């Protein structure tokens, strides 16, 4: 036990180093004065000049703004669709179309992005040819594509949360005379709310981050942030990208930590309430 416990623990340590060294190196070199990115210019560093440059880069700012808007809409729509699909898969038992829905939930998660991107673009082109909509590609087609690949992730998160709860709570509410939509609003929804929140966050991140699918379904004038970054780094490393990465890492890290704390507090409050309820004499 002990010997391979030590082995697996040191692998865990090395693995975490492997995961974090690239991120840390980006953060460190974002304060480097030299344009040579990886050569530390000790005489003039640390400096904030790449951050200043970033703030005046219209291409990056424009891309970021477009990406935020697309990610907000995509994550919200994907959460609604994914929640419906998750409820159907976890609570409806056997129904016609179940296998189809389950299959179309797993497949988009692993589907190579070039295939998803190509197939969606060909769909949009064929649609435009046939019914005149959508008019060309751009923010609308990007959003539709993002909703499609994001909803699968929300479905899985909501479905596994619902499976973790047994149906007796809903049954009890039903026996007490609650109508189906009241059961949903008062019992089911609060139970799966944390799952919907994490699903939404996941969908937002996936949409915000996507490059490959977006490249296929984007048009001229609709360059999202990942597209701007990709065209920059393809030409070589550039220090302002390090600054951008640092800002994004900070935002994500604080977002994740905040939501984890919120979920934990919510959980503790629930357990506390449950204890109180159990202690109360009838």
């Amino acid at each position, binding site marked *: 036990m002990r010997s*391979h416990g030590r*082995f*697996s623990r040191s692998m*865990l340590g090395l*693995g*975490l180093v*492997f*995961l*974090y060294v*690239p*991120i840390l*190196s*980006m953060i460190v*070199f974002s304060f480097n004065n030299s344009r040579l990115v*990886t*050569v530390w210019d000790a005489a003039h560093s640390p400096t904030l000049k790449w951050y200043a440059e970033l703030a005046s880069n219209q291409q990056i700012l424009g891309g970021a703004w477009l990406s935020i808007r697309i990610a907000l809409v995509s994550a919200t729509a994907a959460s609604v669709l*994914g929640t*419906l*699909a998750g409820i*159907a898969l*976890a*609570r*409806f038992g*056997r*129904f016609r179309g*179940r296998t189809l*829905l*389950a299959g*179309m939930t*797993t*497949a988009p*998660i*692993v589907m*190579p*992005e*070039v*295939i998803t991107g*190509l*197939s969606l673009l*060909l*769909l949009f082109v064929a649609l435009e040819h046939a019914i005149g909509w959508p008019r060309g590609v751009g923010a609308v087609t990007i959003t539709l*594509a993002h909703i*499609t690949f994001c909803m699968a992730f929300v479905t899985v998160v909501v479905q596994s949360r619902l499976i*973790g709860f047994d*149906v007796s709570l809903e049954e009890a509410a*039903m026996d007490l005379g609650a109508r*189906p939509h009241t*059961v949903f609003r008062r019992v089911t929804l609060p139970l799966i709310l944390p799952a919907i929140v994490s699903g939404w966050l996941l969908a937002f991140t996936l949409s*915000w981050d996507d*490059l*490959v699918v977006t*490249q296929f379904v984007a048009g001229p004038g609709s360059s999202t942030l990942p597209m701007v*970054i*990709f065209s920059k780094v393809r030409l070589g*490393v550039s220090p302002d990208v390090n600054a951008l*990465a640092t800002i*994004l890492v900070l935002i*994500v890290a604080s977002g*994740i930590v905040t939501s*984890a704390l919120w979920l934990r507090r919510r959980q503790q409050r629930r357990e506390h309430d449950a204890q109180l309820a159990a202690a109360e004499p009838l």
Partner: protein
Amino acid sequence: MTPPASPLARARSSSGRRLIAGIPIAWLLALFLVPFLIVLKISLSEVRLAVPPYAPLLQWRHGIPLPALHLSNYAFLFTDPLYASSYLYSLKVAAVSTACCLAIGYPMAYAIARSGAASRSVLLMAVVLPFWTSLLLRVYAWIGLLKNNGVINNVLLALGVIHEPLTLLQTDFAVYIGIVYSYLPFMILPLYANLEKHDVTLLEAAADLGATPFRAFLRVTLPQSLPGIASGGLLVFIPAVGEYVVPSLLGRTDQLMIGRVLSDEFFENRDWPLASAVAILMLLLLVVPITLLQRLEKRSLEAPS
């Protein structure tokens, strides 16, 4: 095994039920399944200089629609050795990367599953956190580490381990690093979910019966964790076959992966039918692993907890 129908399902009018299941099904049919049929259709047509750049599949002759199916795109994929070598190279890269992910991810998942309840959630968060930050930027960070005058070479030179910078970027090695780095959480999470459920008393029993820890691991833990290994492996392998970002930024220029070939045919050569044929052939290669994964997911999501 289908989960039991809840009162929600039983009591809700069948029209409400139909709506809840029907909306996501309709969306996925329209934007996930139908597009594949369009890709299949276009892969059978001829390229032409027009908008859109492919010939219609039905051609009208004397008022009768005649299907004009062309297998020429597929024939081309099999005659030009460039495509075969790209497919094989992609399969090799995906297989090696999956094996590396397993070798690194298994001990990590094991250590997390065997750590105390308090540190477990922190460690899990530490593993998942990088996954939430931009994949593109994290792959880009490796350029700075692997370059000829990058961090790794500079450190090794300063330590006197090497006297000439090593060529690390634009090699197979860089691609493996990039893919393992990007997909490691997909390996660790299913493995952790599996390992966490194991009954530790079984290992104690094995030890009482005189098994060495290594033997107990081989005979007790490993066989039980096979479903986790399979899910994690497939979650890494399938998307890695079509990976585009990592080989574009870190990979070789003399040997392309198939995802890059597809994208080049589409964007550079504007040969939509050929790009579609490349996609269909890639899908055919992935049908078996995707079906396997669906079986596994079905079992794990529907098993009584």
